């Protein structure tokens, strides 16, 4: 009975560890390069086989420990004393906890106070962690009698003691604690995490597990629970604000949308700056799918394949920030690497099955809208003489709600066919009414056994835009098998099906665009029946018939679906060839296929006859690699390991699409239904191969000085033969000062410095060397037209090289109550492969060359501490990121390079400036005299553009700060994440457009006398909507006079704002309460006889609060332009309203 209990308890402990402390879990594939001896685990396993005993231990306790096998009993009866003797040098001991069950524990210092007393009594209590949650399976030892009990799964224990004694409480993952027994028979104990222990082993490049203290570079690791508390459809969003040095921006508030990530700043001028994603050692497709305009006008954001990873399956996420950490991944790692390790089985010695389940529901509400005005209706001018002017799409029309009647969008016609004026009423909720409550339901069930884990996740999302959403189903299998003690096989396979019947659309023609620009006299609720009566399926009914689509028609009849099947997997074989020599072989595949389908119903403004698009995408990447490792300890406290490895990467992609821009039969969505000659065909395929060889080694001294060296050579098929081989090395040094100088100061617990230098080479896209011909589609009638790119390719390209330096320190104080990690880095990217623009008069618009040098330099600081500990616990973590980007040089004769444009804003790269600088129009100023610097207007009192574009700002922040707080009291845990970004600018095209057409409240001024309008005469009639632009005009004698020309609001706002990017650009500073979760963990008593454990329920919320310097209504984070082929941050075009989310999460084990 007792044995059974113990096993159950230990199992539970391990499962909990799985959730909370995954870093401590050492999978069978671990490499430990410390000794030529066998690992302690192996020795223990061997004894289990020989003597039929069970050892219970914390993986972290035994990890990285090596022993001589002959020191352990090999035959006869089991001799615990001999084992204890062998364990002693390792600081461990063995404790009997059952008939054939033993615990392997750390030995502890006995700084305890003995208390006197004679009574025989039973002491009861609960063992909890720093969050107040029970710690099942904790071992409680009476120091006097060595008697031992185990806490149950609620952390409860009861132990019989004789008089004065002290109890030693030990639990895996926590620092040992000794307590004196007083007179009380009740003794609750709170354990603190053993920080040193938990961070001991981290996953680094190539999936190699290393002791963190040996690393000479900054690395950030988060366990799965951190990305899983407030679940996001795209796991990348869950990293936002949590890791120093990482900048994450959602392209929109849609959960399935693209997410832009940059690590330590953008370094590439022409290529994307997205990091490489590696799941279980296998690089996977992460790149955002380029937004597309399949057919017609609206832009579709298909999101990113990385969102196919289910947060429920994630054991840990490691961010390799610098080129240094990532150098072993080669080319694509120059932008950093995000390593995702998925959950695996329980471990070899744990028997039985565990089933866990969790469920979450999150509801999204459209939250931030521009301040629309509802005082004036449709019209081109307040003083218009044309009675039909109130049919305009601009909002300069007559005053609403004053009892007047005007001809308007839904006016009936009289007997003569003339439009009849109707009540002129405002509909202030016309925009809000359209959006629905979005929802995301996630359900996950996982079955875990000793050497496998099978997990299924279902996600159902409904967007805030009607008729949009996505569904996702994941199946994840991790399994391992030992062929014999020296050969192990493991595999991870994930299959995801991600589908959507309709994606939300962006930019012009999208529902948001239509609603935002709709005059206030339109009741959007009336638009729900979007077919013209009697013409169902043939003719839409719209607020601007024939020119603008009905927003509901866009949502329901202009649909954009996709269906993606995504498989990632790997098989890995590890062999111990000889003493100290292991060989790993692995092949991994990332494979996906996606079919897209877009429908455009008949009568759509852009496609009056309807249209149809189908597309298929296929992408695969296979990586096959080997790693041979030799490790040895040398005399005089030295140890080393060396590894050599190789990798072959094969990338394949192909795509086909067909678009029919006119259909013959309405509603028949088939390419064969295309009007003759209206089909556009496209197909493309590409392949690329990179062969690589690499070597790395570590030399360590006394476990406090570590020197790492690595080297890699790549051969890329995309580069010309004379430059296709490139070599790049790295070196790093880690010194544990606290161990080196044996610092045993009360305040300082741990001190480490790290230094490193590295290079990373980078190739280019396939087929970048020679120009060639394609045929344009559709054909001109039955005539073919050959065409070619106007970018002149280059058959003499060299690889790009990024060089980086990094210096950092990790400090821990007050017995780990306070920790600080700080890093300074600089990265120079040279020889960038960019398309340098040339005048089209040269025959080509650009040529591909090696040019440019970009420097990113910055600070990252992470602080974590526990200011309050006790019954009430407060943990705080903060991370600070500051990156400075500088364009050191471009190339001879070119000092500026146009990276791209969005809504007229130019993203220019200029020498001495920064990537992300935005250049736009501003106003002319008086050049001299007393009014110098004031705005200079033209002769008729209108704003005029300065002659050249000026730098309006940079969209990158000055710094960002993420703060997490965790408060624990009893069963309750409250988590908050505050995201603060300081500085940067964004230009809002939306603001400019809405303002220039009189759609927002800030255009009310001047419209009539009540709103400060001036009385004036426009030449034909007397009006009361006069305005004067603020500025000076030339007086004709070389001087300047204050402008007194009166103009009307329509031209005032149009002139004053529309011409100037600078007047529509705002500070991007914001503070967001990004995540809040309140969790209640039920105790065993509360769940009663239910066959469940670890029942927890959480209330979760996202974006509960947001403050932005720009004012409400415009979210600086999602200020993007989503257009065909690109997502451009810094310029806000037509997008979705920002959302606020609430939800609930339920988790339990069976």
């Amino acid at each position, binding site marked *: 009975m007792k044995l059974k209990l113990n096993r159950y308890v230990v199992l539970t402990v391990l499962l909990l560890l799985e959730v909370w402390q995954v870093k401590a879990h050492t999978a069978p594939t671990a490499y430990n390069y410390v000794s030529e001896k066998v690992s302690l685990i192996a020795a223990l396993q061997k004894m289990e086989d020989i003597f039929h005993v069970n050892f219970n231990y914390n993986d972290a306790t035994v990890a990285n420990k090596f022993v001589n096998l002959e020191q352990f009993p090999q035959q006869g009866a089991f001799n615990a004393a001999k084992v204890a003797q062998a364990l002693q040098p390792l600081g461990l001991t063995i404790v009997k906890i059952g008939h054939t069950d033993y615990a392997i524990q750390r030995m502890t210092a006995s700084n305890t106070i003995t208390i006197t007393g004679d009574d025989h009594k039973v002491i009861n209590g609960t063992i909890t962690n720093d969050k107040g949650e029970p710690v099942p399976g904790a071992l409680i030892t009476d120091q006097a009698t060595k008697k031992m009990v185990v806490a149950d799964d609620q952390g409860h224990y009861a132990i019989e003691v004789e008089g004065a004694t002290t109890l030693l409480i030990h639990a895996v993952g926590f620092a040992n604690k000794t307590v004196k027994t007083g007179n009380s028979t009740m003794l609750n104990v709170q354990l603190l995490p053993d920080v040193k222990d938990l961070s001991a082993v981290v996953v680094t490049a190539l999936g190699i597990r290393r002791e963190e203290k040996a690393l000479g570079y900054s690395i950030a690791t988060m366990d799965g629970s951190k990305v899983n508390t407030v679940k996001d459809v795209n796991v990348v969003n869950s990293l936002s604000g949590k890791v120093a040095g990482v900048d994450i921006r959602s392209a929109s508030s849609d959960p399935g949308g693209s997410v832009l990530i940059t690590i330590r700043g953008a370094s590439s001028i022409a290529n994307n700056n997205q990091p490489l994603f590696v799941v279980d050692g296998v690089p996977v497709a992460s790149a955002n799918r380029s937004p597309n305009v399949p057919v017609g006008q609206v832009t579709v954001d298909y999101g990113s394949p990385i969102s196919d990873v289910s947060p429920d399956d994630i054991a840990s996420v490691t961010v390799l920030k610098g080129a240094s950490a990532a150098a072993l991944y080669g080319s694509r790692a120059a932008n950093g690497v995000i390593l995702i390790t998925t959950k695996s089985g329980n471990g070899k010695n744990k028997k039985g099955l565990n089933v866990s389940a969790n469920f979450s529901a999150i509801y999204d509400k459209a939250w931030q809208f521009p301040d629309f005005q509802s005082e004036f209706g449709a019209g081109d001018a307040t003083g218009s003489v044309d009675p039909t002017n109130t049919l305009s799409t601009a909002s300069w029309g007559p005053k609403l709600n004053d009892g007047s009647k005007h001809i308007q969008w839904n006016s009936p016609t009289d007997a003569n066919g003339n439009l009849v004026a109707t009540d002129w009423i405002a509909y202030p909720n016309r925009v809000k009414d359209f959006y629905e409550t979005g929802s995301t339901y996630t359900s996950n069930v996982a079955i875990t056994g000793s050497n496998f884990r099978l997990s299924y996740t279902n996600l159902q999302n409904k967007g805030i835009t009607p008729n949009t959403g996505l569904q996702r189903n994941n199946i994840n299998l991790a399994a391992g098998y030992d062929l014999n003690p020296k050969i192990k096989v493991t595999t991870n396979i994930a299959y995801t099906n991600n589908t959507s019947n309709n994606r939300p659309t962006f930019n012009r023609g999208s529902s948001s665009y239509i609603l935002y620009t709709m005059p206030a006299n339109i009741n959007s609720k009336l638009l729900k029946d979007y077919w013209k009566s009697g013409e169902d399926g043939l003719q839409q009914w719209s607020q601007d018939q024939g020119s603008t689509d009905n927003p509901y028609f866009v949502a329901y009849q202009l649909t954009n679906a996709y269906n993606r099947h995504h498989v990632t997997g790997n098989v890995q074989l590890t062999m111990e060839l000889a003493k100290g020599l292991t060989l790993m072989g692995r092949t991994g595949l990332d494979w996906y296929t996606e079919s897209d389908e877009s429908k455009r119903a008949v009568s759509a403004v852009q496609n009056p006859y309807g249209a149809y698009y189908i597309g298929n995408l296929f992408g695969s990447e296979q990586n096959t690699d080997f790693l041979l490792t030799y490790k040895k300890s040398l005399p005089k406290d030295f140890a080393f390991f060396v590894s050599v490895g190789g990798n072959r990467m094969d990338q394949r992609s192909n795509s086909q699409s067909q678009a029919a821009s006119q259909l013959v039969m309405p509603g028949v969505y088939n390419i064969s239904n295309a009007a003759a000659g*209206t089909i556009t065909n496209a197909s493309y395929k590409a392949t690329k191969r990179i062969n690589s060889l690499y070597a790395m080694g570590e030399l360590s001294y006394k476990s406090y000085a570590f020197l790492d060296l690595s080297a890699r050579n790549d051969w890329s098929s995309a580069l010309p033969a004379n430059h296709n081989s490139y070599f790049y090395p790295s070196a790093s040094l880690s010194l544990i000062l606290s161990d080196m100088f044996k610092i045993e100061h009360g305040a300082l617990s741990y001190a480490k410095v790290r230094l490193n230098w590295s290079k990373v080479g980078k190739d280019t896209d396939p087929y970048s060397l020679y120009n060639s011909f394609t045929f344009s589609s559709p054909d001109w009638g039955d*005539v073919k037209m050959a*065409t070619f790119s106007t970018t002149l390719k280059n058959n003499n390209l060299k690889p790009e090289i990024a060089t980086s330096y990094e210096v950092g320190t990790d400090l821990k104080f007050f017995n780990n109550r306070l920790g600080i990690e700080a890093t300074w880095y600089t990265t120079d990217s040279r020889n960038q492969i960019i398309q340098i623009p040339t*005048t089209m008069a040269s025959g*080509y618009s650009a040529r591909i060359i090696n040019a440019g040098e970009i420097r990113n330099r910055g600070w990252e600081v992470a602080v974590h501490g526990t200011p309050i500990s006790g019954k009430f616990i407060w943990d705080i973590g903060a991370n600070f990121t500051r990156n400075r980007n500088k364009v050191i040089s471009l190339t001879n004769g070119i000092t500026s390079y146009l990276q791209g444009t969005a809504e007229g804003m130019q993203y220019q790269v200029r020498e001495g400036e920064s990537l992300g600088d935005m250049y736009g129009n501003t106003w002319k100023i008086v050049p001299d005299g007393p009014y110098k610097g004031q705005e200079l207007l033209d002769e008729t009192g209108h704003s005029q553009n300065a002659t050249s574009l000026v730098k309006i700002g940079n969209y990158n922040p000055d710094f960002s700060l993420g703060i997490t707080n965790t408060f624990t009291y009893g069963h309750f845990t409250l988590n908050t994440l505050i995201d603060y970004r300081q500085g940067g600018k964004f230009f809002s095209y939306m603001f400019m457009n809405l303002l220039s057409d009189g759609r927002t409240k800030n255009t009310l001024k001047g419209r009539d006398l009540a709103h400060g309008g001036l009385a004036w005469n426009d030449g034909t009639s007397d009006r009361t909507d006069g305005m004067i632009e603020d500025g000076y005009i030339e007086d004709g004698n070389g001087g300047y006079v204050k402008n007194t020309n009166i103009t009307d609001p329509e031209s005032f706002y149009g002139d004053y704002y529309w011409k100037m990017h600078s007047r529509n650009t705002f500070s991007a500073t914001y503070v967001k309460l990004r995540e809040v979760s309140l969790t209640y963990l039920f105790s065993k008593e509360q769940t009663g006889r239910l066959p469940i454990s670890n029942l927890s329920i959480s209330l979760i919320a996202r974006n509960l609060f947001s403050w932005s310097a720009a004012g409400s209504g415009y979210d600086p984070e999602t200020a993007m332009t989503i257009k065909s082929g690109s997502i451009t941050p810094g310029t806000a075009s037509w997008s979705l309203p920002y959302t606020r989310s609430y939800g609930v999460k339920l988790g339990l084990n069976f």
Partner: protein
Amino acid sequence: MKKIYAIGALFLLSACTKNFSDINTDPNTATTVNPQYLLSTALVKTAYPYQNEAFLDKPAEAARYITKVRNEGDDLFGWAGKTWDGYYGALTYNKTFHDLAASGGMLQYTAISDIIRVFNFAYITDLYGDIPYSEALLSKDSSIVHPRYDQQEDIYPSLLATLTAANDTLASTTQTIDADYDLLYGGVALNWRKFANALHLRLLLRMSKKSATAYTDMQNMVNNPSKYPLFESNSDDAALRYLGVNAIDSWPGGNLNSKATEIDKYKPSKEIVDTLLRLNDPRLPVFAAPVSSTTGYTVDANNYVGVPNAISSPYDYNGGETHISKMAAIFYANQNDLLKASMMSYAEQCFILAEVVQQGKVTVTGETAASLYNKGISASLDAYGISAANKATYLAQASVQYNGTLVQLITQKWIANFLKGPEGWFDQRRTGYPVFVTGPLAAISEIPSRYKYPTTEQSYNLDQYNAAVSRQGADEIKTRMWYLK
């Protein structure tokens, strides 16, 4: 140990890189194509953008064919730098066409390519003045990425010499032109010669103020019709039809390329409508639609009402939308037989000759200025499907009958060139006719003389740009280019 493995693997891998060139061979594209596939491209990329600009861009406002009632920046003459990427892009296709033809010894195609080349370069220099010419298009061949701007007075003679040579080559070669891919003339070399020579006349007239030999060259050409065949009827027009099937082959005003609301911003200008009304011109209903309401107007009682350019609130003119003419329905179509991408017409050639005969600079056997003038008008009326009876009535009107004045001649040429290239604008800036009203809100008090250079030139080709500006004069729309000085 490490070294041995590394060296062994190095050998392995370097052997593996042998098939890299196969992996990096683009399977999607061809390394070379037959030249006719670029003949079609060069023609489409030349003719359609040329027509597109004539209708939707600045030339339509400068020539007072169109008034935009919203987004009226072009009317106000606040013209910013104008990109020339489209024109030079067409020239790049054309150059590749030329190179492929030349390498195959296909003289018929090199000659056609030369004609297309002259057409485009002439268009660019007519728009801007000094432009990259002799060093243009050489990024690939000679790595010239900062081409020098040549002076217009040097460019023009070179263009004319090229046309002469192309005409001669086509006269002598027996190699056939692929009829399917010659979208303009269905493989008839003679028609290409006619186009080359008509274009030659157009360019000679443009530079006639500055060139001592322009008129004698013209005289020489009209004296030798067999050596210099010219357009003889509308069927010789250099005009590319629209198919109306896809956006790329459709009239710019149709729904495949533009929203109806967008085209609704384009109203016929008061100047053209009033002229056509004054002349009882049967082309008026072809160009413009009658107002939808004839009651409640404020200033203009006519059935056809054009909007003055560069006035305040143009959409409110005459009482608003229902009291303003729209463009005629054909301009909203994706394809109409009356609308082609016109590069040059027989009517224009008639007016060119009429003008030089009227000035007494050239004589044409069997023709007078009046006969050529009448032929020009007739050709235009025919092109718009005006009946013979209406044509006769029109020509018989006193206001239409030839009166020997340049203003009458140019006014008729201006009507005939309605939305055909920039010719209406170019004749106005050359002759001052018709006399246009600049409009109260116009930024300058004259019709612009040129486009400003593309703003990108200041980034990509600054030194050459600066040299050109210092030679030609400030980069402003008022600055006069060589042949206008």
